[in-house]
């Protein structure tokens, strides 16, 4: 970790050349002159892997498995986004039993991804600890309980998906084979226990000292009045936007920012920053959470329309508890069905698929030829969309905390980046960026 200190001069530079406890690799740079930020860059040095180009010419059936390799932490987000986009392009309707099993599988991913982040990657920051191994020494129950909940989420993915990282049992049209009733019912007790443990952890996290920061977020989420949206709904914001997922590219674009050499998501037409992810979801979809979980969130300090990014820890933990409860409910209602999928005959078309990945809105669009071969693919992952907002948070944070010494300020900045649980491996669009040194 290269830290350059210029405290004896009016210009200070804080650099972290390899950011820890994020999935993937990133770095950031802040330049302070006379106690004001004059330059900030959050950057990604994930090598490009050209997924969208490599998909061209492949069968529509290949897209879910190939795009799942964009991210090993949230493969279901890619599998489901790609599958739904293909089903839209093919004009295939998915029956309710498949929809329900997919939602349960997706809950498994939310549980394992959220609990991994809250317990093992983010919570140590609030206690000035380097990692969850150190956390396990001072708060062994938190880590052990977190591992239990995380394992339960992984088991949901194994039972339904066949494997927790890059599941094999999913396909366009549904599942290769729906799991046996008793295997799914066998998860119920551990899911209920995991919900209790997640809520205990929520109360423990509530006692953390959350750095003081309020941001004026432009939040964007998938929303439906019927349930807490994960896989279905329309895209909304707090100002009244209400669009179909097929209108995504009319409202959002990935800008090419010359000074940072990076593609970043922004609003059309001005390219302004917006926020996706757990904090945005808990704020805009709060009414779709069960009443008691809304009350637990408020009691933990996550007030309605919370704008403190550090409290994303609490939002993620509320969602982890919700996902445990929802998965248990779906498990209780589950009865094996066969076949596990509907037929998906090839035809030409264009389709959009959009879901709430653990880190936020993840959008796919594909165009197919008559044989169902992919002519074009466009994938917009959540971390690309949050990238501008992360930079804006950092500038605001540093401006408020210029009195901190370099080490503390650097750690605080790292913590602010980890607020986003940035999944930097979803690097379909990220450019390698050289840090400009003055």
């Amino acid at each position, binding site marked *: 970790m290269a830290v350059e200190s210029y405290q004896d001069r009016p210009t200070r530079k804080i650099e972290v050349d390899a950011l820890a406890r994020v999935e993937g690799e990133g770095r950031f740079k802040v330049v302070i002159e006379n106690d004001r930020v004059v330059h900030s860059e959050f950057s990604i040095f994930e090598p490009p892997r050209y997924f969208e180009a*490599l998909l061209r010419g492949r069968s529509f059936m290949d897209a879910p498995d190939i795009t799942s390799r964009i991210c090993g932490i949230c493969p279901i987000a890619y599998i489901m986004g790609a599958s739904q986009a293909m089903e839209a392009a093919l004009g295939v309707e998915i029956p309710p039993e498949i929809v329900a099993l997919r939602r349960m599988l997706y809950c498994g991913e939310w549980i394992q991804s959220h609990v991994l982040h809250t317990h093992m990657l983010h919570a140590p920051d609030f206690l000035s600890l*380097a990692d969850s191994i150190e956390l396990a020494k001072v708060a062994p129950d938190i880590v052990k309980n977190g591992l239990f909940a995380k394992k339960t989420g992984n088991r949901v993915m194994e039972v339904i998906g066949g494997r927790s990282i*890059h599941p094999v049992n999913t396909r366009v049209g549904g599942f290769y*084979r729906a799991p046996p009733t008793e295997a799914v019912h066998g998860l119920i007790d551990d899911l209920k226990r995991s919900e209790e443990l997640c809520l205990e952890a929520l109360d423990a996290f509530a006692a953390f000292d959350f750095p003081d920061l309020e941001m004026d977020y432009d939040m964007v989420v998938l929303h439906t009045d019927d349930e807490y949206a994960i896989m279905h709904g329309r895209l909304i914001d707090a100002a009244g936007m209400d669009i179909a997922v097929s209108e995504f590219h009319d409202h959002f674009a990935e800008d090419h920012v010359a000074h940072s050499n990076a593609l970043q998501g922004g609003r059309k037409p001005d390219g302004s920053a917006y926020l996706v992810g757990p904090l945005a979801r808990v704020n805009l979809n709060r009414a779709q959470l069960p009443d008691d979980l809304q009350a637990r969130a408020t009691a933990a300090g996550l007030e309605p329309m919370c704008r403190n990014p550090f409290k994303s820890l609490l939002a993620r933990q509320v969602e982890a508890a919700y996902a445990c409860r929802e998965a248990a409910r779906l498990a209780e209602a589950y009865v094996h069905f066969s076949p596990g999928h509907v037929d998906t005959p090839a035809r030409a078309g264009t389709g959009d698929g959009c879901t709430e990945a653990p880190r936020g809105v993840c959008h796919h669009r594909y165009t197919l030829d008559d044989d169902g071969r992919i002519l074009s693919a466009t994938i917009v992952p959540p971390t690309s969309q949050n990238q501008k907002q992360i930079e804006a948070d950092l500038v605001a944070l540093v401006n408020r905390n210029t009195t901190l010494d370099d080490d503390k300020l650097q750690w605080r900045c790292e913590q602010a980046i980890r607020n986003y649980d940035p999944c930097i491996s979803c690097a379909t669009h990220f450019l390698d960026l050289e840090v400009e040194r003055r």
Partner: protein
Amino acid sequence: MKPKLAVWKFSSCDGCQLTLLDCEDELLAIADAVEIAYFLEATRNRTDGPYDVSLVEGSISTPHEREQIRHVREQSRILVTIGACATAGGIQALRNTRDHGALKSAVYARPDYIDALATATPIAAHVEVDYELRGCPIDKRQLIDTLMALLSGREPRPIHTSQCVECKLAGTACVMVTQGIPCLGPVTSAGCGNLCPSVGRGCYGCFGPSESPNTQALAAEFRELGVEEAVIRDLFAGFTCAAPAFAEEIKRHGG
């Protein structure tokens, strides 16, 4: 002194190193048995090398990575590659047979900003590798077995018999014989735990070629089943597409 463990990432999805964090029952015991000296996904702490064991995820796809892997090798007593990217190049190695300039232009508005190699290659193409763990992702049990072997001074013994052996051991009916589903199992290394055939799906080869894989005979069998040439090509052009036996077969089908 505890042995020093380092975990490194190159071009990849993070899934293989996540497998270590997914060892929920064993994680605290592992953390007790070794010093986690470098593992960016899990800890802010970093200790300088040399390292006793380095786990290396990902393939080499940029000039910077090509330099970095030499540094990792110099600092590591034992280097273990983990996963399809590190052992075979990964799905991104599909680029190796394409025009790199065209790929860059297809994805990026300013391809001139991209500083990447025209190929994504396995770690062993750049430095000596002591052991490898296959899979996309690796198997958790194989990871723990390998770590235990290395920590106790025993030689890890990877098994590269075919996936068919796992089907027989598990009593899984052959999907190709009974249902006519094309399956890479006869030429793919065992190790995943018989995942795809057990849900009625053909193996997609993510553990890479088995010992002495007869891919031509299998491709002929696919043809007998009525599978089109382009589909045969794409079956081999998966997560271990650049493994030599599969790369050769892809070429035979116009890839």
